[in-house]
């Protein structure tokens, strides 16, 4: 039973601007650190392979998520090339985004793995991007100890 209409009370409403600003830190862990260091210092992409179910994980995990086998000693080096399994085009601007719009966020399945991971795809007009196209990692000159030590993936010249 609605007694008062909303419009009657809204004369007293207004909006107060606010903010939340909190410092924090993230630890990559031993396994994550090895992955980042390989990107940063050797320009290599490493994954881990589960000896039981043969899944290859990149970024790497300490334990296989399917059967809980400890896999952090089974490092494999993956190449820098893979397939674009899907993508989206980011069309809005936000201070938290790594690029100015429009830019392509792609799912990249590196050769030798079954699971794609997300990264930026550059060097191609968003209109010309195609599922199934081959892409290659381009490493960053200035590194940040994050996944952006790969700067982006670029289409492979056929």
């Amino acid at each position, binding site marked *: 039973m609605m007694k008062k209409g909303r419009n009657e009370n809204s004369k007293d409403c207004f909006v107060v601007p606010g903010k939340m600003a909190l410092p924090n830190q993230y*630890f990559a862990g031993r396994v994550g650190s090895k992955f980042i260091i390989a990107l940063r210092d050797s320009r290599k992409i490493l994954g881990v392979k589960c000896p039981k179910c043969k899944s290859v994980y990149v970024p790497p995990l300490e334990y296989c998520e399917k059967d809980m086998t400890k896999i952090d000693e089974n490092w494999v080096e993956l190449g820098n090339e893979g397939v674009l399994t899907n993508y989206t085009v980011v069309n809005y601007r936000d201070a938290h985004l790594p690029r100015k719009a429009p830019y392509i966020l792609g799912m990249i399945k590196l050769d030798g793995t079954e699971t794609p991971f997300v990264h930026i795809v550059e060097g191609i007009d968003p209109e010309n991007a195609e599922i199934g196209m081959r892409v290659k990692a381009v490493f960053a000159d200035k590194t940040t100890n994050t996944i952006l030590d790969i700067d982006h993936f670029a289409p492979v010249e056929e």
Partner: protein
Amino acid sequence: MTKKKNRNVGIVGIGMTEISSHKEDQNQPEMINEAVRAALADAGITLKDIDCVVHGNMELFEMVHQPDLWHMIGTGALGKPEFRITTGGTTGMTLVAASDNLVASGMYDVVMAIGFNKLQEAGSTTGGITNMADALWYRHLQTGALTSTSANLSIEEFGEERARKAAMKHRIMMDKHASLNQRAHRRFGLEYNQMEDLMKNSPQLIGDLRLIHMCSQSDGACVMILASEEKAKRMSKKPVWIRDHIAVHREETASNAYFPLLSETSQRVAARKLFARNGITNPVEYFDVFEMYDPSAWWGIEWLREFFLLEGDEAIKMVENGDWDLDGKVPVNPSGGVTASNPISATAMLKPAEVALQIRRDAGTHQLKREVRHGLASGFGGVMWTELMMLEKDLNWQEV
């Protein structure tokens, strides 16, 4: 209104990581995974036997939104029903209470509850807690869990010297208990002859709340596996039964702001109702152990009176006489309590977990000598929210 369970629920698996700070060599899912594997091993089962996962932490404390999605790679929840629960400081115990309800209801037979916090990854826990406060009028002032309002009231009631001594004695007793617990985070090796020195020299945080009185900020994960009575009896030689639990979070018991004008604290309401509906008329006589969620020594001594429905200076006299010690009338926090270890969302789960370990006689170096049949565990969170849980060794308790 008595609560009748559809079927009984037993704790069959308990897993904990070591509780420390700065776990830099693990990320969040890896830390959780350590406790998950430990609990599965303790229960003697694999992920296949888990019907449902219940995951929780204080939201945004690690600055990750909905972390259960990411943590799936460590929790083993892939392809399973999962609940995410976040109820502030009480999260750990809410996870166990919710899992108990899920199993008792008949919806799931075996449920895994996961609580954790990796607080070194939060720049500031108190800064995070202040996000609970109303953004328009309270946030600029909120000091989170840090308050001396309890100390002010205890000092007014018992006098400066008696109150301060009791709080410090309780704190030192907690540290002595923690020193026996190999998993505890902070073990200072305090002695009672340091009381005067600490009372003078420990830095003041807020009023009479000093640094030494206050809980730590820790990293750690705790996992408990609950099963229906039938499965629990098959899976475990010594399942620990969850008899009953209650949560009290009402406006008149909430927030420091109402504190002085409360009719009752949430601790007392919880104890009064839980004991009445279970026919417990003398809690000091009944319980063999109490793991209390005591974020500060001041709240510790105040809430002992509330939880045991004592009056006047009865509880503080028991502090002075050592009645809450390991060989006293009701041992309190043989694990060292929250001032020693506080991986917040695991903390409130560590309370029933530690009680269960005591009942099973698996607590190791901090195992109580006496027989432990009837255990009590409490959880606490913002704002002044209390949870209370009763655990039993045997299924033969009388329904009231």
